[in-house]
């Protein structure tokens, strides 16, 4: 069969659907230069797991020359069936380093750098060095942090218009069983990850009274074992979800409780699933979502085609249902709109209650610290400052602030300097 032309063929031709014709125009396609642009572009891949391996392979096979990859994890034997850049001999090694070495060995023309560690430990300057960031993370908190970091990099002028040269697109992919989604985030132009937080519901939990008093399902027994029995037995040790010893303990306790209530179906796998809230990964779904993500990255870099606007959902269980739509920006998104949060509360509300409200509301903060213009109300860290501000938690708002005073909230789900404006008006 005759050899078919490849991607470079498209880069050399103009067409009716290049970037400038799109709903989200990012630049003008130039057949003279776009191949060079592809070669010089620098892409950051976050995560070297199931999606990450696919993303790296796809980039390598598409003509990208400069790639960096970051991942915190080491290779586990259970990864081998779908994380195809890893072999038996690599177990225990750093995911990012082994993946990078594999790509280097097969494609020696590619310049690939590996980072082993947390994305939260890299400085702002690190992120500024990339043209596009592709994220293949399975963890909502890391995605929130990354999103807030990259949105924060955009310079906005007095009219609120972003400086295009400071916009680094994020392509975010995620999979769960036969389902997946890919999306394009153009910080300050499209919706951001935080805008869609509601579509990533917090872990499903059962009512505590069911777990404690009227268990019916194996899941209830497992929840009892890890939520109630573990802290009682090991008050000073946090359950390590990745430790087989810890998980075996939970499994055995759950089994004992299930036997007591004659409930069937507690297995080790189910225990893992309930505790980690995991749906098994499917290799083919990773392939689909990763390729969709890389395809978007290439189009954003070369302007050779329109881009996804902004969200693609894939569901492969019952036939295939694929839905593409504009995910709208959330009006009061704390990350990409800079909107001020307004709460109306009784002046007798304690600061502790305010902190709890910030954690449990749609903001889903983890450990909020609050300062007013004149004083530090409560700081979660460092420990000395926490101890000093802790007495404020029991105080009522009327003794701490004026009604309508502007407060500033910081939280570890967002990068250091990112703060949220909060105004509390008394009822």
């Amino acid at each position, binding site marked *: 069969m005759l050899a078919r032309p490849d991607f470079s063929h498209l880069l050399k031709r103009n067409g009716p659907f290049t970037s400038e014709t799109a709903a989200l125009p990012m630049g003008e396609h130039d057949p003279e230069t776009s191949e060079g642009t592809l070669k010089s572009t620098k892409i950051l891949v976050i995560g070297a797991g199931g999606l990450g391996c696919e993303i790296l392979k796809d980039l390598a096979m*598409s003509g990208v020359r400069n790639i960096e990859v970051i991942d915190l994890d080491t290779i586990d034997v259970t990864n081998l069936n779908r994380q195809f850049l890893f072999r038996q001999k690599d177990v225990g090694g750093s995911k990012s380093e082994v993946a990078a070495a594999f790509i280097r060995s097969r494609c020696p023309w590619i310049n690939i750098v590996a980072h082993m560690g947390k994305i939260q430990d890299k400085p702002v300057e690190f992120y500024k060095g990339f043209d596009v960031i592709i994220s293949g993370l399975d963890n909502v908190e890391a995605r929130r942090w990354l999103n807030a970091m990259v949105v924060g990099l955009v310079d906005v002028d007095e009219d609120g218009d972003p400086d295009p040269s400071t916009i680094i697109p994020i392509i975010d992919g995620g999979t769960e069983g036969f389902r997946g989604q890919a999306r394009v985030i153009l910080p300050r132009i499209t919706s951001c990850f935080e805008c869609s937080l509601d579509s990533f519901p917090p872990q499903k939990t059962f009512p505590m009274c069911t777990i404690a008093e*009227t*268990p019916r399902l194996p899941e209830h027994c497992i929840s009892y074992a890890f939520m109630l029995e573990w802290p009682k037995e090991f008050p000073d040790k946090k359950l390590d979800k990745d430790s087989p010893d810890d998980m075996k303990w939970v499994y055995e306790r759950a089994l004992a409780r299930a036997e007591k209530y004659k409930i069937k179906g507690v297995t080790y796998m189910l225990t893992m699933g309930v505790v980690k809230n995991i749906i098994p990964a499917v290799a083919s779904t990773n392939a*689909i979502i990763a390729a969709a993500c890389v395809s978007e990255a*290439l189009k954003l870099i070369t302007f050779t*085609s329109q881009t996804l*606007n902004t969200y*693609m959902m894939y569901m492969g269980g019952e*036939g295939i249902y694929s839905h*593409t739509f504009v995910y709208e920006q959330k009006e009061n998104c704390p990350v990409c709109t800079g909107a001020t949060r307004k709460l109306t509360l009784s002046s007798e509300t304690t600061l502790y209650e305010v902190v709890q409200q910030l954690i449990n509301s749609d903001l889903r903060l983890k450990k909020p610290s609050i300062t007013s213009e004149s004083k530090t109300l409560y700081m979660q860290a460092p420990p000395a400052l926490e101890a000093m501000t802790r007495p404020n938690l029991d105080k009522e708002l009327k003794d701490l602030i004026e009604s309508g005073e502007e407060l500033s909230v910081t939280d570890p789900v967002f990068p250091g300097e990112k703060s949220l404006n909060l105004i509390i008006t008394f009822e």
Partner: protein
Amino acid sequence: MPDESTKDKSKAEVIAGTLNELNPEVKGGFHVPSCSISEFISNAVPGASTPQTSLTEYIKNQSNLTYPPSTVPTSSGATGTILLIGNDLPASDFLSLSKVSRVLGLPCILVRTYGMIGSMRIQSAKEQFTVLQPRPSTEKFDLRLNSTSLTPSSFPSLSEFVDRITARLKEMDVQQHSHVPYVALLCRAVKQWSEDKGSMPSTFDDKALFKETIKKESLNYNDELNYQEAVEKAYTAYAPDSGVPDEVKDLLESSNVNEISGESNVFDILLSSLKVYLEGNGGMPPLNGSIPDMTSDTDSYVELQKIYLERSAKDLKEFTEIVNSKVKEIGKEENHIPPATISTFVKNVPYLTVVPSKSYFDEMTNGPSDDDKEALMEQVWDPYEVFEHSPFLWWVGLKACEMHHIENNHWPGKDYEKDAESKKAEVDMLATTMLSIFEKYGVDVSDMEAEGEGVSKPVVAKIAEEMCRFNGAEMHNVGSVLGGVAGQEAVKIITGQYVPIKNTYLFNGIVGCAGVLMG
């Protein structure tokens, strides 16, 4: 990923090698025919019919694969062990592969990538895919509330449970009262209603009244979750219990099921046994035994689970006896259908799914039926947010390119760089082909000169121009998306789990949208 050392080797050999490397459990083999792929697929080498020159002979000579396809499903319900997948072959070869697959009685998948467009066509071994384990995202529970309330003898153990637990309602404390399973509350309410009124609630007012009666029996409706569940699920009790899905009922009337023989496949034997069972059990299938989670104390819930499981085991026993006598009737050995298969079948009766599957050959040679046209029309008018990206339009664009290739032996867009006139001639020619396809599918394009509403000539021209620009280019990522999708469908077909698509999946990589086209 192939490396430098593989240069000049057979592609098939290299790919098989990397597959084995990827997963040591995979036994990847390869075959290099002594003729062209086209001749191999279409069994067209005159006089010579060897595994080297004929796909049919090659399949029949596989020692490690079962041919003809096994009539015994694997534990997971698959009835075939061979799946043919054609990748990026010329359209004429897709036609041959589609035809030969139906002759051999094997399913096949045809995958094509073309620039930023990719398509996957799947085709079953026979007229349809029968899915034994669809694993739907929402469970359907067969609780028999209606029949048990009206005819207690049809499910005595449940009926006894309901009477026993509801007789004590008045003596219960608040905690106990709020943990009586809704199943018991509903059964009692339906029984009461039918005794009082002689029929089931059918009008809107009756239904509202029925729910109101349940509410009134609660101590404090807002606090009693079990009563709230009963009201929410009331329709499952006053409506007749659902038997088998309609599409399965249709299957039961097919000749494959009514005239089973030694040649019949396992699925048809099971269906013909189901038919006998339904006739003997008032149209109700063997109970599958699973119940939903509900507000309840542990003891009642566990007891309820047991009641349904025991009944399910009893039904399974009766059903198994019917299957075994059928098996004997057609002269097969006793274990022809293993107990595990029968049990999987019974568990899945409420979910059994049939997906009709027309062959690609039929689609291309005979064109669309009126039903196909109607199904497609719905998809044209239900496009992606931007109409010009509707998968249906690009599917037509891709079909036009295939026709161009059959006629000219190259993809359109070859002369794009030559001069403006040659480029325009190619684009116009492809647009004309597209218009003829639209006509075939009953889409009127003739008087839509202006861009805007529906399929207009300017939109067709734009798509034709983009398809010429692609000129059959092979893009890694489009290949990878389609590879993933085809992999997923292949697993569905082989295992009989999850539901395959009907006909064609089309990926539009320009904006990353996709659709399934049933025409």
